[in-house]
């Protein structure tokens, strides 16, 4: 496979999915939209925001990353499944995939590109959303709160952001695993809605068996032993090798399963 073909395929994937990626990035900031509505419509929330001061802002920032992480590892995963499900199935359904097969590329190369581009987009959106949400909260607090300034709360912001990176690792890992599963269903089922149902069912099953652990690893510990504060940052998203490695392993397995199914798929 030549360099030109590689560039062309990357360009094709980017052209096809950039709007979807944008919508996906926006959708992953739904907690910010909810928070905005709460601040607009609830006087008491506006009051709390207005009464904040620099040292207390740290609690708001910590709450923001916990809330965003909570969204990412629960409702956000369904969103992810919805967006990822069109990766292959749609192109099989409308038979546009055959244009690719006309090119001098192997079948597994096509799938690899699609998986890689989708995975990078998905994990970037998910991972960055924690930091963009935190940044938005930081800017809004400095703009609206009477005793919060950008300079005064910078230390709190950096502290929470650095702790937020651990949450990013978890969110990226979980989302990669879910993306891989949904990708497999997208390869497996040509009709996108069947893949969506399969993805949703598998997510529900994942929550039944893994959900409580996942929530505990990422957010519960931080909100349980708070020592009088709303969030204990030290306990937020503590990195654990076994589950993270396990999820990466599952994601790899699902990818290879997708390659296996794709290689043997009968396409008409």
């Amino acid at each position, binding site marked *: 496979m030549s360099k030109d073909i590689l560039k062309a395929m990357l360009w094709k994937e980017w052209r096809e999915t950039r709007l979807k990626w944008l919508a996906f990035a926006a959708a992953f900031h739904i907690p910010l939209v909810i928070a905005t509505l709460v601040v*607009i419509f609830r006087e*008491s929330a506006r*009051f709390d925001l207005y*009464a904040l*001061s620099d040292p*207390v802002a740290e609690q708001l920032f910590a709450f923001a990353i916990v809330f965003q992480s909570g969204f990412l590892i629960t409702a956000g995963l369904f969103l992810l499944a919805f967006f990822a499900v069109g990766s292959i199935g749609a192109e099989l359904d409308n038979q546009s995939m055959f244009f690719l097969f006309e090119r001098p590329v192997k079948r597994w190369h096509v799938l690899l590109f699609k998986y890689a581009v989708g995975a990078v987009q998905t994990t970037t959106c998910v991972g960055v959303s924690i930091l963009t949400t935190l940044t938005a909260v930081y800017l809004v607090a400095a703009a609206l709160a009477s*005793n919060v300034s950008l300079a005064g709360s910078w230390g709190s912001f950096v502290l929470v952001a650095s702790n937020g990176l651990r949450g990013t690792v978890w969110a990226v890992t979980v989302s990669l695993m879910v993306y891989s599963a949904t990708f497999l269903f997208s390869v497996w089922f040509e009709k996108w809605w069947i893949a969506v149902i399969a993805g949703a069912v598998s997510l529900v099953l994942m929550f039944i068996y893994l959900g409580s652990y996942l929530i505990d690893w990422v957010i519960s510990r931080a909100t349980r032993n708070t020592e009088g504060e709303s969030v204990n940052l030290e306990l937020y998203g503590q990195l654990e090798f076994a589950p993270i490695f396990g999820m990466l392993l599952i994601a790899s397995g699902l990818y290879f399963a997708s390659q296996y199914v794709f290689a043997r798929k009968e396409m008409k």
Partner: protein
Amino acid sequence: MEKLKSKGFILFAAAAVLLAGVAAAVEFAQPTKAVNPRLERLLPADTVGFVEVNDLRAQALKVIESEAWREFSKENSSASSLFMIGANHAGILDANYAVALLGVGSGESGRPEPQFVVLAQFDDRDARRTFEYRVLRFVRDGMSKGVEIKTEEMGDARVNTVKRLGVHRFTYAQAGNLLVVSNNDAAIRRVLEVREGKAPSLESNEKFKQARAGSGAVDGMFGFLDGAALTAIVDSVPAGEGERAAERVAAFRQLFHGVGAASVHSASFTSAFEDGRVVERFRLVAPGREGVLATIAANPPTEGRLLALVPEDAVQAFDASVANAPQTFDQMLALASQLGQRPGGKGPADALAEFTEKTGVDFRAEIIGALGGEFCAAQLPSNGPEGGHEGVLILNVRDEGAFAQTLAKFAEKNGRETTARDYKGVSVRRVAGEKGGGLEYAFVGGAFVASGRGSAVERVIDTAKGGRSLRDAAAYQSASAQLKAQPQFVYFNSNANYLNSLGRQLQGGEYEFKTEGQRASLRPSFAFGVTREDGFYVESRTPLGTFPRMLTAVSSRLGDEKKTAAAE
């Protein structure tokens, strides 16, 4: 995915955004009950007096925005935020409150009792329920066993009478977002009748209308007292059982009329934020004033000359005209003599005679009678190693020599050592006191200057000898620029210590505030009182007025209640 691209989906999304926008506009355009305050509409026209606090949340926001709170937050950033957030979540801010005295009615036993009501008008039902849960429930629980609640409907209102062990404790009524609590059943009914339009409201009371119009503010706090209604109550209070009770009632009535309270037409009070600080105005309307009130009103205004002796760095100073002090004293003495005279007991004249016997000084003639036209008390920052503050008293006296003689007589009679020293050509005398204390005094420019610390007297002498005085200070001049007429008294506070005292006010709850070592350059507080043709007018400008104290009181009480409930 195709659905995302369809026109229908885009239209649906646009409609949802539009709907949210309209809902937001409605939310902001329509004032809630708490920001549209007129609790007088719910009180009977013959209400004796009431104090209302309008939209507590707006007041709390103004506290946050104020100059003082911003400075305070720099020193107590966590605690000040948490204090306000705590008050926000105590469920008390989304309402207007009023406390009123409706009059005197018959109690359960048939004996007369004052009819007090507390009104709370909430933004919504949630706010009302929160308040009920937090307050009424705790009150009921606090009374523990034997509590019995009788409920009846009155129009759309539900009236609950709370008894404990068969004795009536209080009654409260809920109607929509309104909550009325009273010590008396009849008072609740009167409020509900006004609410239903069956009886005229206080809004239709002419005196109230004048007071409201003259207050110039509908924000913050407002208080009103109907002088005639109060006089009617005092005059109609039954004598009570027993000779002593009758005597007490008669004596109080006599005192009430003697001080001239019966000549008060109305009194009003407002407290509101202006320019980041609190302006409080008190207005007493008494065009035909009588008794002590008339004597005080006849007092000439203060010229503020003694303020020229107060050093520039004074923390606070109070200057008042006392020209009519002898007449006022005589009137009060006469009143006290009439009231306090009991067979075999000591009257005020006996007390004065005893004072003369013990001290060798005739209090009326040699102290009160020696006073000139002006009185000033000031607090100065101490320059000594012990730090703190030192007080100094400056008085105009009619005759320096006679006043000095009086003090010498007092010292001699009590066996106190008297010494004198010279400071910059002025003789500073010292009368030794007990436990190493004493009084140092001097006469400076016809004024008597006294303090427990000699350094304070010396600093006044320094000022008299050309040092900069408070009256020359830019801060004082800027603060006193608001004077609208020649005042009877003025009060100045540099607020150098304000943040520490605010910390002490707020202390005691769950938050730790600094109470020492905070300094901020706040604008000074200033208050003055003037006599007008129709009565008296007092105005003050302070950093936060009574709002922090009120917020602390309300939120900390509820906080305590919450803790109690949690413990149970």
